[in-house]
């Protein structure tokens, strides 16, 4: 297998403000984010030779991009749970690397606020494997991660009260970062006490351990480096991409101990190998880690090799993942501040890394960020899709 390292460049990106866009349609979000990306790249819609759209519950086939009036180019819709946006990038990157297309558009979008309820649908068409027949009990998303948290604490002998405080600190960190980001949905400082006192959603996860639900869209223009140079000097490069899907090992297999997600480990391993990363804790300068629930970010610290096994909360306590820490995680505010319009989230994360690597992240700029990581995981143990992407500056 060959590596994707340095074979695909991102020359333009766009990202809408995330939030409750009552006045905007799915297509409005597509137009806003894609035209930002076109302008940023210095191209027009007619330069796009193929397009991918990542959306979990949105428009089918290519109709999500229809209002862009692209000239009958092939458009592929991608759905891969919370990794939808990142997997759209991956598929587009491979097509570009293969030389089949020179310039492609990747759009990630979700319009969740028209559902009429909070949370995400746990019914067709999003999770057909669980609910299409509607015959079996569904395990709601917050519960999936709560099951994990209780067993993780138990496994490492962490006092549940102390464990909940560690989780709260992750939420506080991400909310703080979000206050520095005009595109974030929630821009409010919160305290550990507020997190602990928030209404219970699924024990031990309270309301502020869970990400919000937002509308949002992000877009990227991909090309090969030799073409990228015609458009700009400060493009960023894909260094590694790993996607791993569950093989049903976890919730049906008594050997599984709930302290890791194999999907994360395999996806990260693939991405690290491609990027030549051997010590992620040292070599990654900035990361966007999937924080749909705080326990998810905590566990992923370990799966991604940022923290030793069972020791992630020590790094949380020491501030290692804060903006001025050793490895800032979710500098843009993460899902906690942005909410989780599923198709958009992965590309929104890449957008932040794109800004960070080019030194354009303003008050939340991580100094001298050369290598950035993004991570998504969606589903439940044994049925996750995990995606890890590594990006670097041109000279990195």
């Amino acid at each position, binding site marked *: 297998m060959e590596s994707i390292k340095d074979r695909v460049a991102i020359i333009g990106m766009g990202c809408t403000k995330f939030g409750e866009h009552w006045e905007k349609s799915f297509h409005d979000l597509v137009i806003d984010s894609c035209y930002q990306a076109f302008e940023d790249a210095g191209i027009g819609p007619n330069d796009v030779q193929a397009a991918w759209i990542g959306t979990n519950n949105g428009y089918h086939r290519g109709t999500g991009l229809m209002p862009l009036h692209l000239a009958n180019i092939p458009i592929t819709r991608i759905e891969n749970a919370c990794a939808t946006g990142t997997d759209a990038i991956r598929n587009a990157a491979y097509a570009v690397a293969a030389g089949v297309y020179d310039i492609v558009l990747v759009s990630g979008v979700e319009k969740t606020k028209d559902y009429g309820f909070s949370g995400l649908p746990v019914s067709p068409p999003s999770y057909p494997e669980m609910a299409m027949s509607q015959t079996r*009990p569904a395990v709601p998303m917050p519960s999936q991660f709560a099951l994990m948290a209780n067993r993780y604490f*138990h496994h490492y002998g962490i006092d549940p009260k102390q464990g909940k405080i560690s989780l709260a600190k992750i939420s506080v960190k991400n909310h703080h970062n979000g206050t520095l980001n005009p595109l974030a949905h929630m821009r409010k400082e919160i305290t550990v006490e507020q997190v602990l006192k928030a209404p219970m959603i699924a024990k031990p996860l309270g309301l502020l351990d869970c990400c919000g639900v937002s509308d949002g869209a992000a877009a990227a223009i991909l090309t090969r480096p030799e073409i990228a140079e015609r458009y700009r000097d400060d493009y960023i490069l894909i260094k590694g991409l790993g996607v791993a899907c569950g093989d049903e090992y976890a919730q049906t297999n008594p050997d599984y101990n709930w302290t890791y997600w194999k999907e994360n480990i395999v996806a990260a391993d693939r991405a690290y190998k491609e990027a030549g990363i051997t010590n992620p804790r040292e070599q990654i300068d900035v990361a966007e880690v999937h924080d749909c629930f705080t326990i998810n970010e905590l566990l992923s610290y370990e799966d991604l090799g940022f923290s030793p096994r069972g020791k992630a909360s020590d790094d949380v306590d020491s501030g290692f993942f804060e903006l001025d820490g050793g490895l800032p995680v979710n500098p843009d505010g993460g899902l906690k501040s942005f909410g989780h319009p599923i198709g958009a989230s992965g590309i929104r994360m890449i957008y932040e890394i794109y800004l960070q690597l080019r030194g354009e992240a303003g008050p939340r700029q991580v100094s001298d960020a050369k290598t950035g990581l993004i991570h998504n995981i969606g589903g439940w143990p044994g049925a996750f899709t995990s995606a890890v992407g590594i990006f670097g500056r041109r000279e990195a």
Partner: protein
Amino acid sequence: MVGIHSWGLYVPFWRLDLGCVRKGLKGERAVANFDEDSLTMGVAAGINCLKGIDRGSVDGLFFASTTFPYKEKQASVLAATALDLPTNNFLTADFGNSLRSGTTALLAAFNAVAAGTAKQILVIASDMRIPMSGSDLEQEIGDGAAAFLISSADSGVMIRDSYSIADEILDIWRTDEDKFVRSWEERFNLDQGYFRVLPKAVSGLMQKNNITGKDLSKAVFYGPNKRRHAEMGKRLGLTPEQVEPSLFGLIGDTGAASTLMMLASALEKAEPGDRILTASYGNGSDSLLIEVEGDIDQRPQSSMQAYVTSKGVLQDYVRYLHWRGLIDRVTGRRRPPIPSPSASCIWRETDQNIRFYAARCRKCDTIQYPPNRICFNCHTKDEMDAHRLSDKEAELNTFTEDYATPNPDPPLALGVVDFDGGGRTSLYITDKGDKKLAIGMRVEMTFRKLFTTEGIHNYTWKCEPLRFSEEK
């Protein structure tokens, strides 16, 4: 000789404190949880009755109730499937429309086995009648079930004879569209119904067998309430010691199951040589003469007394009304209605969801639920045997309580369980009561209703903390 080989009871975990129904009322009545109905309670009684018995040896199931989940669709077949009983050369029937249906089903099973049509028929009587809010019946009606295995195999409890009366009367009734029990004036109901008919069936039986009240060790008979039940004992010329106590104040009138639940309770205490009269009431009466010939070796593990004391007391009348669908209530955050399950999926997944079969790999013995075609451990394809999980205990591996997801009775408790003998899956947890969930907690399986939508009752197996953990 044909007799009662074994029996089992089921009383729901929950009791409604009558004091919260109406100020001044005393006592309790057993109420099914929101996820129970007459079918699931009947399955629970069936499980208790069949403990230690080869399920493949049962060749019929008769189900009696006045509250079947479907008007058209046999409860006995669904119960037999949930109990993992055979399907071929297997006799099923539903007995309904009268509180007498429980004893009628028992008699029919007796006759079928005596005639050689079947060797062992499981008889289940289960009822969950809904009294109208504010009615007098609200103090009396309770939910529960009993099951009896009628067998040609040697058993100590013989059904010696019976005498039945058919009696046309409108005293207690429901039309096919009524949700609640209707009743005529109590004086009429008692004088021209209960007190006229039940004694007639009893005396018919006694004359036929040349016995008198003095020859009875115990008399088990239906009663519409505690007072009238006691009065019937006197009218039959029985001493209070001879009368098996009614269940009022503890469980209540469990309809079609009522007489048989009392019979089960009487049999628990029976000794060789005992002669037990059993009489039901409902558009007539069935009177049965039961004799204990030898030792009873199949006494159930869970006694009436154990069920009476194992309970959670509900003191929230509104919560109860919501369980019965008598009021609408917010059940978690706003959500669209659950779409109907697909009947073809329910059918295709019967072994998995109703018989609760896991797959056991023939190559590596790994047990997996939901069942896989390809073993997740050794990847062998299509070499799986069915492995029943419904009768296995399990241990809670992890758990949570979800307050946000829509659920008729939030929070939704759920967990991942490791089965004794192998296998792991996630399950909803029910009848937790005040028990605190903990990793390592022992649980047992219970057949419940997941939800009902668009006329489809969707049944599933849940787990509950061991009901009688102190017995272990």
